[in-house]
């Protein structure tokens, strides 16, 4: 049971009613990732990643750059670079043609199976709106294309009309005119709206957003976030939201997974993780993000050191070379403590909260 955090930093158009009653069956999984590991050569990039997103659920994925967040997202899309070898299982369930549930085993599926899934069952909004659109194609045509590819509309004419509707819904002024524009004639915020319209065009069961607002002006960020949240709510879609902006996660997501060194180090409801972090990395991440909190000797809290290069994380606990609490015990991989992959942490020296809200 989750409640909206008190300090909603962005207008998100109202949180959904909290779902509970035990008599309704739990919503179906739209993405189910188990034991996902990705290596390049012998360097591990992702290890033992478990992640589930259900219909109507908004899940955050946080961590510093180089933690493996984007790689996890690309693995779900089946868009990993060719030289990366994923193992484990990634299952995406969406609405196939005719509304019949379609399940895709992403790591095993062929290119055609994946192409049928992408843009239909699962869609993605990327970080950089300036380069995400084809510069030589009108934006209306680019939005219409995702519908003609999957035949979710009757014909090209219908796709073009629906594209204008979608552009209008994402708040482009004069959508009919905007549909005829080329990407370079739009601002970054407007382009990201086009990308969102494109991603939502086929009512996907899962929307993955990889830092969708990082490249945007602060004033535009809130509007685009609102658009994404309202978009997935209207479709009862699952949302996997990748960011390193904790305030955004707090306002958008219900559950959160914290990644570091290619592993999920902590997971749980947003409120729990943010107010009572257990993993030392999560603690550091929240301390570094909290501008109200400053060290007694002055200056903001930071995590010492920097993220190692891919494959250069220490054995055992991946965080131990930057952790002030690390001991010899941390040379072994700490076991996952918690009720399941959705709630728990992997830390040998977790933050103990009854001692007074932090260390």
């Amino acid at each position, binding site marked *: 049971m989750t409640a909206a955090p008190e300090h909603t930093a962005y207008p998100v158009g109202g949180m959904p009613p909290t779902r509970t009653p035990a008599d309704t069956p739990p919503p179906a999984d739209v993405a189910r990732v188990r034991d996902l590991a990705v290596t390049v050569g012998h360097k591990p990039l992702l290890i033992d990643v478990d992640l589930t997103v259900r219909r109507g659920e908004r899940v955050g994925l946080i961590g510093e750059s180089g933690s493996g967040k984007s790689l996890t997202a690309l693995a779900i899309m089946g868009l990993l670079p060719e030289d990366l070898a994923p193992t484990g299982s990634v299952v995406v369930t969406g609405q196939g043609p005719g509304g019949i549930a379609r399940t895709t085993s992403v790591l095993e599926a062929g290119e055609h199976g994946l192409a049928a899934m992408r*843009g*239909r069952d699962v869609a993605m909004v990327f970080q950089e709106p300036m380069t995400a659109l084809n510069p030589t*194609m009108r934006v209306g045509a680019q939005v219409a*294309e995702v519908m003609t590819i999957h035949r979710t509309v009757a014909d090209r004419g219908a796709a073009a009309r629906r594209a204008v509707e979608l552009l209008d819904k994402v708040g482009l002024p004069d959508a009919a005119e905007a549909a005829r524009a080329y990407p370079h004639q739009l601002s970054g915020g407007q382009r990201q709206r086009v990308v969102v319209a*494109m991603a939502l065009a086929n009512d996907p069961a899962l929307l993955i957003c990889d830092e969708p607002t990082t490249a945007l002006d602060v004033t535009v960020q809130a509007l685009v976030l609102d658009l994404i949240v309202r978009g997935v709510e209207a479709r009862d879609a699952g949302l996997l939201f990748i960011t390193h902006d904790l305030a955004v996660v707090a306002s958008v997501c219900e559950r959160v997974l914290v990644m570091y060194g290619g592993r999920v180090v902590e997971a749980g409801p947003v409120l729990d993780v943010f107010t009572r972090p257990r993993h030392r990395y999560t603690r550091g991440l929240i301390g570094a993000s909290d501008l109200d909190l400053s060290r007694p000797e002055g200056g903001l809290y930071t995590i010492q050191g920097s993220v190692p290069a891919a494959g250069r994380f220490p054995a055992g606990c991946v965080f131990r070379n930057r952790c002030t609490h690390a001991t010899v015990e941390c040379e072994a991989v700490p076991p996952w403590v918690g009720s399941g992959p959705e709630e728990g942490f992997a830390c040998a020296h977790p933050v103990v909260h009854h001692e007074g809200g932090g260390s």
Partner: protein
Amino acid sequence: MLLRIAERTAVLLVSLGVSSALVFGFMVLLPGDPARVALGVNATEADVSRLRLEFGLERPLVEQYLSWVGGLVHLDPGISYVSRAQIGPQIADRLQVSLILVAASMTIAVALALPFGTLMAVHHRKASGLVLSALSQVGVAVPAFLAGILLITVFAVQLRWLPASGWTPPAYDPGMFLQQLLLPALSLGLVQGAVLTRYVRSAVLDVLREDFLRTARAKGLTPMRALVRHGLRNAAVPVVTVLGLQLATLLVGAVVIERVFVIPGLGSLLLDAVGNRDLIVVQDVVMVLVVAVLIVNFVVDLLYLAIDPRLRTVAR
């Protein structure tokens, strides 16, 4: 958009003016009197001055230049000092032959470069890509005239499949025309195709790394369809640039191949004119080549505008 086209047209007109002045200027600067050069060392003073009068060489240079340019504008490049024949029809005949040869070579080059360059980019990590890459490298290293001689040796002398040389107008005997066109067009086209392949490869490789291609795949396009629908047009700008340069090179480079295959093109006219010291013909042919190159550049500029909408906006 219209402003951009007007801008390019203005550039074309100015370049035409400047280059005609340069061509004329170079001919004036050449040591020796064109009339004396045309008549040879044994000509008498009286003959020379008669020729000078006849061809208006006594007039001021500006007047000579203007009357030459005026003639060119009216498609009348004048009369040969040596043969006294009209130069216009000769150039028209020869230009037609050269244009056919260049067009055929370019078609072969493009037909080779687009599919192979794209394949090389898509398979750049696989053995097939490497083999194609090595083959194109060989093609780049071979000069066209050597390719021509090799082709003659194999297909004309050894196998006797095709004639070694000559030219038949297409209207006269289409079969013979094609047979005689094939080897010279191949020797130019294979070499230019090998060069172009490498540019297509690098342009496609660049475009494969673009974010919007990942977007296209995220929409549900297979890698090949994403490349064809979203990549190729974006890869076209650098390829068109090289194509323009190659066309210009071919127009001039055909001179040698026309010699090898005994083809009555513009190149052989130029070489003949140089041999006969027919300076006005040299001047005209050079100017025709310059005009052709400038027009190619103009068309390339217009193609840029057609391909990339970002270039259409004037203000930046």
